[in-house]
């Protein structure tokens, strides 16, 4: 992550035909506009089915495992050639960038303009795009988008002080960004103990001395019933923080987890922002079953969404969610946000006649729960300390925190 926002360039495609490798930022920029290239994924079938590259504009994607290029190169190359008329360029992708490099080289030997995605899906999964949402003299709001997984965190800066809400796994990137903005990290706020990704919150607190906050109900593992083994400050409903000219209020919004909170940030210009974590998303809302008690927690989700979010959060607030399922949920600038009063109308998963029909629908549409989510929660409350490779594997794939359908 560079200092400041990722620049959106349009030069990508013409370079693509000439280069032998591209990095994840270049790929990200290619996917933000309609570009005519072929994505060739050379991973195993099950890896491809689980998780693949998507963008605002996802190009045609061809899947041919790399070992088919070893077994019968002529046939595999012919399949690629059939999709690449008139010098259409190819980006080759694998898990870590090794097999795709091999395949790209073979394709170039057959006069196909193929470039390797360096670092493969591992690097793609770790790419963060940082964009400004608001940049005023007295305060700024930045979106940190982990594009391959649909995870979003938010940075607020005011008068040299910074807060991060739902920091993702790599704390160093936030610190580099903040030092570029000459802002000092003051608050690290997790809306809840995450199940789908590893939070750098406790680590950042240790490294910087900034305070890390979590609601105590989430500082106990919902399956193991073992308390957290890490340092944290307890969040309480109604708790307020000052960050320069901004006020941050904690609102307890249980349901996705029992200790989930939202942060309502009020700015001097009258604007308000609500970091919803896994409560409200732009197109859906957070599933109630990741703690193993969907039937008990689904009614709580209803009370939070249709009670607390209607009474405790300013209706003009910009909803800043923790996830999205599709890049199409972003606005024209690429920011995942909507005002709450618009969300009631435009989020089609919020249209229910009453609580029983809501609960019935939710329990009938629970998506698959990845088994590693139980372990990730252990990591996030200090009960488990995976090495880098294991952490990479735990975080593989897109988040599945929203309700389906």
């Amino acid at each position, binding site marked *: 992550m560079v200092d400041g926002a990722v620049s959106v360039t349009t030069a990508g495609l013409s370079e693509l035909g000439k280069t032998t490798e591209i990095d994840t930022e270049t790929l990200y920029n290619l996917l933000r506009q309609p570009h005519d290239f072929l994505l060739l994924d050379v991973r195993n079938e099950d890896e491809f089915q689980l998780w693949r590259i998507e963008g605002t504009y996802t190009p045609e994607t061809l899947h041919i495992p790399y*070992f088919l290029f070893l077994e019968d190169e002529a046939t595999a190359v012919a399949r690629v050639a059939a999709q690449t008329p008139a010098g259409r360029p190819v980006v080759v992708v694998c898990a870590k960038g090794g097999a795709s490099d091999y395949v790209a080289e073979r394709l170039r030997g057959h006069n196909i303009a193929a470039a390797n995605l360096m670092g493969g899906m591992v690097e793609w999964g770790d790419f963060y795009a940082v964009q400004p949402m608001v940049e005023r003299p007295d305060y700024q709001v930045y979106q940190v988008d982990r594009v391959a997984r649909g995870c979003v965190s938010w940075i607020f800066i005011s008068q040299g002080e910074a807060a991060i809400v739902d920091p993702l796994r790599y704390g160093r990137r936030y610190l580099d960004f903040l030092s570029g903005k000459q802002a000092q990290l003051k608050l690290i706020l997790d809306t809840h103990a995450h199940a789908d990704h590893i939070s750098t919150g406790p680590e950042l607190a240790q490294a910087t001395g900034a305070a890390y906050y979590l609601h105590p109900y989430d500082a106990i593992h919902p399956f193991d019933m073992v308390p957290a083994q890490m340092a944290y400050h307890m969040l309480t409903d109604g708790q307020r923080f000052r960050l320069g000219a901004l006020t941050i209020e904690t609102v307890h919004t249980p349901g996705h987890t029992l200790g989930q909170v939202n942060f309502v940030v009020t700015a001097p210009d009258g604007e308000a922002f609500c970091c919803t974590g896994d409560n409200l998303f732009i197109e859906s809302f957070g599933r109630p079953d990741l703690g193993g008690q969907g039937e008990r927690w689904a009614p709580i989700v209803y009370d939070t969404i249709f009670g607390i979010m209607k009474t405790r959060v300013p209706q003009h607030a910009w909803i800043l969610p923790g996830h999205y399922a599709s890049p199409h949920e972003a606005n024209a600038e690429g920011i995942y946000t909507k005002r709450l009063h618009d969300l009631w109308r435009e989020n089609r998963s919020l249209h229910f006649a009453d609580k029983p029909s809501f609960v019935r629908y939710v329990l009938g549409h629970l998506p698959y729960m990845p088994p590693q989510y139980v372990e990730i929660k252990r990591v996030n409350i200090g009960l488990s300390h995976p090495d880098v490779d294991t952490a990479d594997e735990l975080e593989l794939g897109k988040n599945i925190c929203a309700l389906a359908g």
Partner: protein
Amino acid sequence: MSVDLSTLTVTRELDVTGLKCPMPLVKARQEIASLAIGDVLKVISTDRGSVKDFQGWAKAATQVELVGQSEESVDGKTLYIHFIRRLR
């Protein structure tokens, strides 16, 4: 897999420890071509991804069979071991 790997007669061993994808498979493929039909090659790798790759390869390739796979821990490193037989 139900084959007892400890009693399997291994014709040759191929050490690809330290090599990353796609090299374990590239080397194994070269090596098995030099074996006789029916012979078994034992491939020792440190690349975790090779487990799925050898499964996928054996399914797609007509000339090899994946007889079995195992894991061993040696000096804090995990070894991923593949037994492949040349079929034709």
